[in-house]
């Protein structure tokens, strides 16, 4: 069974820059895949296409049997709930507490708040931030913000984790810890797709590697 199928995908941004060209790839359910490549290669663009944050200029992106290019606007929220998204720029909300940031994915699905609070604390505990639940994200270090973003991505137990540079700001110890966390998720059946430069992490987790160069897949 496959979760994500890209065939002959092209992405040209509004400015005319071609970020991806002729990309074809499959990611199976339960797989762990690392997407590597130089800065500006198109890794983030690839993840954004999978999460329907961007639409392909040509070709098709199919997630859980749904063609993203043809998906109606009303269908997008429900597609996105299958994902846990870790953003390269975190996208945390600075006007609410760490705890409330983690609650957000549960709130939007109307999850029972008391039950949700337990899950949010468990997610914070997994990334080592439980003691900061009342803090404001602005007071967190770069690495802590990154871990908060990961907690928010896993709190609703998604089927697919899409993480963009999740260890970019972490020292080796924390990066290893987060890597183990992703492996644990993968072992219980979650599909994990990571965009990363972190070769140490790749060596530790032994995932399938896909290398992008100048918008094309090279291996």
């Amino acid at each position, binding site marked *: 069974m496959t979760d994500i199928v890209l065939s002959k995908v092209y992405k040209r941004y*509004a400015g005319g820059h071609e970020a991806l060209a002729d990309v074809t790839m499959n990611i199976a359910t339960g797989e762990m895949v690392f997407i590597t490549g130089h800065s500006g290669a198109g890794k983030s663009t690839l993840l954004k296409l999978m*999460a*329907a*944050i*961007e*639409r392909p200029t040509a070709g098709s992106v199919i997630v859980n049997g749904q063609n993203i290019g043809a998906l109606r*606007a*009303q269908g*997008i*929220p*429900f*597609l*996105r*709930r299958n*994902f846990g*998204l870790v*953003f390269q720029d975190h*996208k*945390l*909300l*600075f*006007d609410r507490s760490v705890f409330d940031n983690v609650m*957000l*994915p549960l*709130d*939007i*699905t*109307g*999850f*029972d*708040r008391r039950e949700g609070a337990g899950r949010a604390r468990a997610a914070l505990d997994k990334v080592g931030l439980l003691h900061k639940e009342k803090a404001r994200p602005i007071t967190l270090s770069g690495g802590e913000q990154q871990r908060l973003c990961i907690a*928010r991505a896993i709190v609703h137990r998604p089927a697919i984790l899409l993480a963009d540079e999740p260890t970019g700001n972490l020292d080796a110890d924390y990066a290893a810890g987060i890597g183990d966390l992703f492996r644990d998720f993968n072992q219980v059946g979650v599909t994990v797709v990571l965009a990363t430069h972190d070769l140490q992490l790749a060596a530790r987790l032994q995932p399938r590697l896909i290398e992008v160069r100048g918008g094309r897949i090279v291996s």
Partner: protein
Amino acid sequence: MRNWLAAHRRACTGTLSRLAGAPLASLFNIAVIGTALALPLGFYVVLANLQGLARDFSPQPQLSVFLAQDAAAGDVRALEQRLKSQSGVANFRFVSRTQALETLKSRAGLADVMAGLADNPLPDAFVVTAAAHDAAVLETLRGEFAGWPKVAEVHVDSDWARRLDSLLALGRYAVLMLAAALALALVAITFNTIRLQILTQRDEIEVAKLIGATDGWIRRPFLYFGGILGAAGGAAAWLMIWIALLVFNTQLKPLSALYGIPLRLAHLSAGDSLAALLFAATLGWFGAWLSVRRHLHAYNPS
């Protein structure tokens, strides 16, 4: 279902805490909306009071039906029967020509004039009291009676009632027009308030959308905000009118004591108050809805 209710409750309490979080801006907004609503609402209150006053002071709606000079006793009985079965007639009494003459004679100064007449110039007459005050009803009755045999003339004392009626109708139009103009203002105010809110919360909206929030979920707090703002504005308007009436009625008190009649303006009835509040809330909601519809488009994927 329970989750759905809880979500609505959360949106509602969230809105209230957001209002409380910026008390000065909220108060200012509510005051502006309240003033906009107080104008037509106050006008309406005055109108309703006038209408009540007119009803209280208007005399019995009467028609005088004068018979022809040659009407015989049989004709009078026939007319009496017709009047009895006529709908819209509350009661009537017969005034014979001799009776009328006697009345006139008894008036000081007229006796001599009457004595100089060879014949009684007065006709027999029915004085009819209509069941309704309505000018239109009186008018139809007059037409009806005028068509009956041996009826020479029908007089209606409905002129002043009609004049007041058309004046009040004009007043109602004015209230409607004022209300429409200020409803538009209220919608514009909430539209703009919500636009600013969407701008200040664009991060929140963007992130929520990215992680799977539906448009409905994102829209909900703004709609609540608009509705609650409108309702609060309506309540403010109600309060302003209440205070105005309090002052006005205190001023009226000496006057009312002087004339020995209870003069005081009443506030909106409970039903009208509720309707006004709901109307204001609906307008606020609508303004927010327009704003959200207009400004949330920017967050869809390209």
